């Protein structure tokens, strides 16, 4: 192709890359924490270690990568960019990174002042980011199910941040609040209202695009995000009287989980109908994620219908591993292996000129390296799930999680270095061609 056309001014490639390169570091930290705590990490969801572990994965890995990915999705899905992209992302990245470290330190060392500093860091940086992105999503003339899902997802992020800040404030200033109830609602909005809706909104666009499947059926894309939002909102309201779960609350939770199963099943079916039967890392990551989502959401239904399962300490660990290590980490890894090569390619086009061949996306990260990380991550998932009945498996599971995150980080570093190398080569070739005429 020829890149003689000029490209719109997009933020420099370092803007999204900083989020992507930071996320796996928190994944490694989560693996190290698992090794440090051993089987004690499984004992309860309320221990300091379990809360630190949850936030290393949910905020350190997932939210970090999702913020970067959302910034990239806006120009693709909405044809829009956010206000002051460079400044906003630098501010968000710094606030999110420091805030996550403070939050995790607060949980681990049970020290109030860590929470007191973490609250303003996280609230201001993430809150500003969410509002700016939401404004961009409402101002775009673009329409469609992806835009609707992204708007609701960002609203879900705002709910999650608000409730999270409330909980952290209660730790920081010893406020008497109904912590258990707020935590349930905070977790549901973080995993369902924000993360799952973001994945769904992105999936409507990228699954047909990159995996060459038929489009998602209109009945699903029209109803999924709005229905999940109303179910979550109604379920959240049932917690207000602070009473034991009643039948209505259980029915709402089961309906939301069933909806998640439907989304995952439709995605798996579309992948089975893809036009090119090529097996590649992103497809495998998405398949594992959707299969994990079916299992996780089914487990939620079983748990809701059998209240006794809550007493089994392994249930929260099982759900946490399924959702974070099984669903969201694989989706994010698979997406990063498309987003980073695509960004490299787009930015290299800007350097070139007619007749100058720009390296293609496949040259950015070697596929065998991505497949290796997929195998490591699958091993981590299997071992950590095995740790529910056999707690000693948490040690090899932690090692596999660290290995997977190191491999992911290195693959992303390779993509970054390849961008620098290809940029340099293109500029040198341009300089050589211009030299005789000057």
């Amino acid at each position, binding site marked *: 192709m020829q890149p003689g056309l000029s490209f719109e001014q997009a933020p420099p490639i370092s803007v999204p890359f900083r989020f992507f390169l930071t996320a796996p570091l928190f994944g490694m930290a989560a693996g190290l924490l698992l090794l440090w705590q051993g089987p004690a990490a499984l004992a309860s969801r309320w221990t300091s270690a379990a809360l630190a572990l949850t936030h290393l994965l949910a905020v350190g890995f997932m939210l970090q990568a999702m913020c970067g990915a959302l910034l990239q999705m806006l*120009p693709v899905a909405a044809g829009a960019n956010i206000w002051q992209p460079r400044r906003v992302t630098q501010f968000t990245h710094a606030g999110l990174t420091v805030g996550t470290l403070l939050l995790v330190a607060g949980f681990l060392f049970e020290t109030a002042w860590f929470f007191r500093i973490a609250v303003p860091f996280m609230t201001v940086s993430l809150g500003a980011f969410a509002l700016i992105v939401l404004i961009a999503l409402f101002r775009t003339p673009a329409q469609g199910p992806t835009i609707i899902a992204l708007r609701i997802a960002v609203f879900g992020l705002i709910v999650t941040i608000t409730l999270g800040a409330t909980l952290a404030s209660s730790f920081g200033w010893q406020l008497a609040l109904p912590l258990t109830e707020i935590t349930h609602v905070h977790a549901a909005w973080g995993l369902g209202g924000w993360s799952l809706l973001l994945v769904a909104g992105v999936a409507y666009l990228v699954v047909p695009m*990159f995996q060459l499947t038929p489009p998602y059926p209109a009945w699903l894309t029209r109803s999924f995000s709005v229905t999940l939002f109303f179910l979550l909102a109604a379920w959240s309201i049932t917690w207000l009287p602070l009473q034991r779960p009643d039948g209505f609350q259980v029915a709402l939770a089961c309906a939301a989980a069933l909806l998640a199963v439907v989304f995952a099943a439709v995605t798996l079916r579309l992948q089975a109908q893809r036009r090119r039967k090529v097996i590649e890392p992103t497809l495998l990551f998405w398949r594992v994620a959707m299969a994990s989502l079916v299992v996780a959401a089914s487990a939620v239904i079983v748990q809701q219908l059998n209240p006794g399962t809550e007493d089994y300490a392994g249930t929260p660990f099982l759900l946490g591993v399924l959702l974070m290590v099984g669903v969201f980490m694989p989706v994010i890894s698979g997406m990063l292996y498309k987003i980073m090569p695509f960004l490299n390619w787009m930015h290299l086009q800007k350097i070139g000129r007619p007749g100058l061949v720009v390296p293609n996306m496949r040259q950015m990260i070697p596929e065998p390296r991505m497949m290796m990380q997929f195998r490591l991550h699958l091993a981590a998932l299997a071992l950590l799930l095995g740790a529910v009945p056999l707690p000693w498996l948490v040690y090899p599971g932690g090692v596999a999680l660290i290995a997977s995150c190191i491999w992911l980080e290195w693959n992303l570093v390779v993509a970054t270095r390849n961008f620098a190398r290809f940029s340099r080569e293109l500029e040198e070739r341009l300089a050589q061609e211009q030299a005789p005429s000057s």
Partner: protein
Amino acid sequence: MAEERVIDGRGLMPPEPMELTLTALDTLPDGEELTLLLYCEPHPLYGILRQNGYTHRSQTRPDGTVEIHIRKV
């Protein structure tokens, strides 16, 4: 009569449809139209077209295919 120029990008992996479109625009005579078929609205391409003096209009078929008609302003 001018030949119809159509790029069917529905079975192609990104960024191949964009590469083919930009290459085809190179040789698109003034007054003629290039049609691109996709399953989504290519917003990044729209930005490039706007910046380089091309106009486009799109319409969605019942099967979800988006038809994008591009011509020089």
